[in-house]
């Protein structure tokens, strides 16, 4: 069994309008991480929440290192998302390069517009692969995806306890939309204010509201 590790990087909470985003790097021995998935690397999004939680525990037990970047809405609001993830990716790779004995390969789920040059400088002899759908192709990326999703879900649970049930936080979720509408202009700090969704929802002056006939309540 070699000492070199493989590193997988993925994030969760990129699309929601509410809550933090988690970018995770999992560094592990390739044969061990592959054995966790028993040759069946599935996109973590397709796993039931229960199965995902079970796998997260197993991954945390068997990974050599797990590096986590946590980005709150305030940070997300002030960055271009892909640039933020690119910065986070370099930080994860630099951290693993410092603490791991050696890294054979880095597998990353695609981040658009991000250059791999800084990673190649950090790990000149390593294979570096960035692909769309890497989380359903490479066990170590699936592991990173599962941990990221696990962290995001625990985070959302905690926010529900404080701010009420806003659903998944995704703009397509009717519960999220209703919660945002109910919050009106008094949005708590867990909401990503720069998010276009807010404007699409009418909170930024969009929606049908400004086209309503004034002083009338119904057509009939």
């Amino acid at each position, binding site marked *: 069994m070699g000492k070199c590790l493989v590193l997988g990087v993925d994030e969760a909470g990129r699309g929601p309008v509410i809550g933090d985003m988690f970018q995770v790097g999992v560094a592990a021995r390739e044969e061990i991480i592959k054995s966790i998935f028993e040759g069946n690397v599935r996109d973590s999004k397709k796993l039931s929440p229960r199965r995902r939680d079970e796998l997260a525990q197993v991954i945390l037990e068997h990974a050599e290192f797990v590096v986590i970047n946590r980005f709150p809405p305030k940070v997300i609001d002030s960055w271009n998302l892909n640039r933020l993830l690119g910065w986070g990716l370099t930080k994860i790779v630099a951290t693993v390069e410092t603490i791991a004995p050696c890294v054979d390969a880095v597998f990353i789920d695609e981040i658009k517009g991000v250059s791999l040059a800084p990673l190649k400088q950090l790990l000149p002899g390593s294979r570096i692969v960035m692909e769309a759908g890497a989380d359903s192709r490479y066990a170590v990326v699936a592991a990173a995806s599962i941990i990221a999703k696990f962290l995001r879900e625990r985070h959302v649970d905690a926010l529900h306890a404080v701010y009420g049930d806003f659903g998944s936080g995704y703009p397509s979720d009717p519960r999220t939309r209703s919660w945002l509408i109910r919050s009106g202009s008094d949005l708590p700090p867990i909401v990503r204010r720069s998010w276009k969704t807010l404007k699409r929802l009418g909170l930024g002056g969009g929606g*049908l509201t400004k086209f309503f006939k004034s002083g009338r309540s119904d057509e*009939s």
Partner: protein
Amino acid sequence: MRITFSNARLWRYVMASVGKFIDTGYILINENGLTFKAMDPSKTALIIFEIPKEGFMEFDVEGEHKLPLSIEDTAKILRTAEKDDVLSIEWSSESITFVFERRGVPRSFTIPLYAESAIEEIPELELEIPNKYVIYAAGLYDAINSLEDVSEVLAVSGDEQKLVLTAEGDIATAEITLDTERGGLEEAQVENPGFRALYSMEYFSYLKSPMKMADRSILEVDEGLPCRLTLEYSVGARIVYYVAPRVEE
């Protein structure tokens, strides 16, 4: 009081579509006919489903009645509607009953109504939209069906002869042109040629089933304005659907 409509399946598809993004709505019934209205919580889309009195097989109504209801529950009931079912609706101040009848066998479902105060009034929209396209039968359904997986944004542009529907995704771009001469477009009345309007694709995807059933579709659209989509059916029934413009930065 009771009203009877010959095509239960139209109701089924309308409620199933609306139920994908709206929880509650209300039916208004008066001597002129029936109107169902619902608006999504984000106020991005508003749907009005109208059937004039003449569109009903039976229309025994006095006065005006407002019936606020759960769209999810209504859609569940209407899911049982089959092709040859006739739909009758009866109501009281507290409940609404849907009766399906095929080959003389009635099936009856009753659900409670919400209190009127529990449902937000839906305001009237004041809109003059300068560009109007009349699309043949299921042409709009075919277009949305082809474009919806490519992008979450639907771009609509056009001139006096053609209507162009575009989906620009990260990887692919898809474009469908409906033309008055080459096909797909029955009529175009355009005051602002060269416009380009953007809408969220999902709000068109929700309405695919009613689009498919429509005899014809009328799309009124302009840059920065909500679009008004009118779907016309037999016996004078129609859906009027508004979608707010998408805000791009």
